């Protein structure tokens, strides 16, 4: 019997930004299978030209609302690299602490609000408020803690203002850090409860595996890294300096979709929580390691849907490491060091982990400190080719299922990557069929 599958998801929902899915198949033969991105390009690399090094992070933070802290740090690290600015140990630890607030806010939003509806067979989190009130309240609480923490150290919820080249514009008090410690300690049981609910639903994640290359920051053996280190890969032992990120990303235009894609050792690679886990699992702190074990998540996992589970593991890791950082900061005492910097001519790059994967920025400045060159390489761009390759492997495996089931699996796959399509400074505007 002939069977036609014709799926056209225009502007997939519950993701950040605009993406389309197109699948056509007849009699078990795939005719077209594409992940497309019609997001309006925003031209940030042009927008920063001529602007002062003191205004760069204010502009590029606006590349993305949900990774604004990470974009701020990628820019600040690149600016400091370009101008030879070093920061104190206190500044470094406070930055990591601020960066963790974004991982907390973003991961809890993604798993709790955007992915959970698929696992529970509803279209949004709204019906879950009535059907699963207790767990929804816990997710809201975790999300709120992340946001208030970001506001307290970053000065604003989304688009932080305390982060400047050379240090902080203002510092949190020791009293606040003690309060944060209490809040984070107290939310661990809530996080465990949410993890258990996710575990009870993990069977709904499709059993699909496709070996690929994973790329993430590596700072071993020091730590499970979000902020420090070089660019690591599961395909080689080499650690690439952030200054050479173009050698990793190899951005190119695909004849198939005309959106800029990335590849390194093979035809595509994946970035994000699962990539970080696959490269840094040994460095997880005890509670996070126990959470990974509870889910049976092991190094070498190549099921992209498990990125959601790796995010749950990272929520635990982020809280555990934050508690350590707070203790270290309190033991040393907060010193009243504020940002200082003088501009100089130079070029530099920064690499930081956004919740959805590794992010690279590069800038060059003239001797007045005005920007003369910029390049930003976004995690979702780096995942683009991998999503496409996953589609190509996934669709034949499930082609016997109903059209609705195939569509759901494809949408869930895109969501699993936690894409952030607004970040797409490079994305081309593609009109299809």
């Amino acid at each position, binding site marked *: 019997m002939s069977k036609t599958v014709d799926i056209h998801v225009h502007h997939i929902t519950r993701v950040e930004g605009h993406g389309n899915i197109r699948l056509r198949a007849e009699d078990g033969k795939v005719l077209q299978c594409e992940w497309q991105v019609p997001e309006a390009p925003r031209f940030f690399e042009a927008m*920063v030209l001529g602007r002062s090094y003191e205004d760069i992070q204010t502009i590029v933070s606006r590349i993305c609302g949900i990774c604004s802290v990470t974009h701020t740090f990628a820019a600040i690290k690149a600016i400091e690299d370009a101008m030879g600015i070093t920061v104190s140990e206190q500044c470094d630890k406070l930055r990591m602490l601020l960066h963790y607030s974004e991982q907390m806010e973003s991961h809890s939003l993604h798993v709790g609000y955007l992915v959970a509806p698929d696992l529970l067979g509803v279209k949004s989190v709204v019906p879950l408020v009535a059907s699963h009130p207790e767990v929804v309240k816990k997710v809201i609480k975790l999300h709120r803690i992340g946001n208030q923490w970001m506001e307290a150290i970053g000065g604003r919820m989304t*688009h932080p203002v305390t982060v400047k080249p050379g240090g902080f514009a203002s510092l949190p008090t020791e009293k606040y850090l003690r309060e944060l410690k209490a809040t984070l300690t107290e939310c661990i049981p809530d996080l465990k409860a949410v993890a258990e609910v996710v575990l009870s639903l993990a069977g709904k994640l499709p059993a699909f595996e496709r070996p690929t290359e994973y790329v993430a920051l590596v700072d071993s053996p020091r730590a499970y890294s979000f902020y420090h280190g070089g660019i690591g890969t599961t395909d080689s032992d080499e650690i690439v300096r952030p200054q050479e990120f173009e050698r990793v990303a190899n951005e190119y235009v695909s004849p198939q979709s005309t959106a800029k894609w990335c590849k390194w050792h093979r035809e595509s690679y994946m970035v994000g929580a699962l990539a970080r886990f696959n490269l840094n699992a040994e460095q997880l702190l005890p509670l996070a390691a126990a959470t990974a074990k509870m889910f049976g998540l092991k190094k070498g996992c190549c099921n992209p849907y498990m990125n959601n589970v790796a995010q749950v593991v990272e929520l635990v890791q982020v809280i555990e490491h934050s508690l350590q950082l707070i203790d270290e900061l309190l033991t040393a005492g907060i010193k009243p060091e504020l940002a200082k910097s003088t501009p100089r001519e130079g070029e530099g790059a920064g690499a930081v982990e956004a919740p959805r994967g590794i992010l690279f920025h590069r800038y060059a400045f003239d001797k007045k400190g005005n920007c003369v060159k910029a390049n930003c390489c976004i995690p979702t761009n780096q995942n683009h080719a991998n999503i496409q390759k996953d589609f190509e492997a996934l669709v034949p495996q499930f082609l016997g299922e109903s059209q609705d089931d195939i569509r759901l699996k494809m949408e869930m796959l895109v969501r699993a990557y936690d894409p952030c399509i607004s970040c797409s400074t490079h994305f081309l505007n593609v009109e299809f069929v």
Partner: protein
Amino acid sequence: MSKPRVAIFDFACCEGCQLQVVNLEEELLDVLSVVTPVEWREAMSEQSEEYDIAIIEGSITRPEDEERVKKIRERAKILIALGACATTGGVNKLKNNFGMDEVRTIVYGKDAAMPHLNTMPTKSVAEVVKVDYMVHGCPINNKEFTYIVRCLVMGKQPVIPNYPVCVECKMRGNVCRYEYGEICLGPVTRAGCNAPCPSAGFWCFGCRGYVDDPNVQAAREVMDKYGKTVEDLKSRLLLFGSKQEHTDE
């Protein structure tokens, strides 16, 4: 009055203002008790062509988006512009300081000539269709957002501050950023944010746009007093005020 149907749409932006709506946390549940969301792509899978209130986030940067926002305007009884990209064009207007061919070449290099890279000078939503209410800021102040929604549901006119950020900054007891030798846009920028940036030790960069009648002469005097030039001021004004009235004054 039955619960108004609300649809949220996003154009060129970072979606950080929608995020502030999500960041209402428990209070969002209260908002949902007085309005019915019928379309909100970032948060739900439902879609609808019937709504009373349309909330638009983002700037208009392509001809096809201009058509889309006009269609939304036709269907909506009330249209709200959400955040700086929608209210003034925001950082997206930095692009308008360059030629469109130039920005394409800067970002896409040899691929710049590809036809699907069409972009036009950034427009705010109000430059394309009639906007009934504006929620200013980058990102928005979500307390102001709920205040406006509350007013609409109760049939009242929201009152948005029309005085500069300096007023709120002084009320918070901050030392003026000019005393630190910095360029701050508080004197000409619309209040309503409660001055979070100067309160956190950072200058105001003008994300809420100008007050209706900014005291440009007073701003000049401040520059003179602190040994700064109008060019210094303009360099920062460009971030959120490019190609807007007053920036060139």
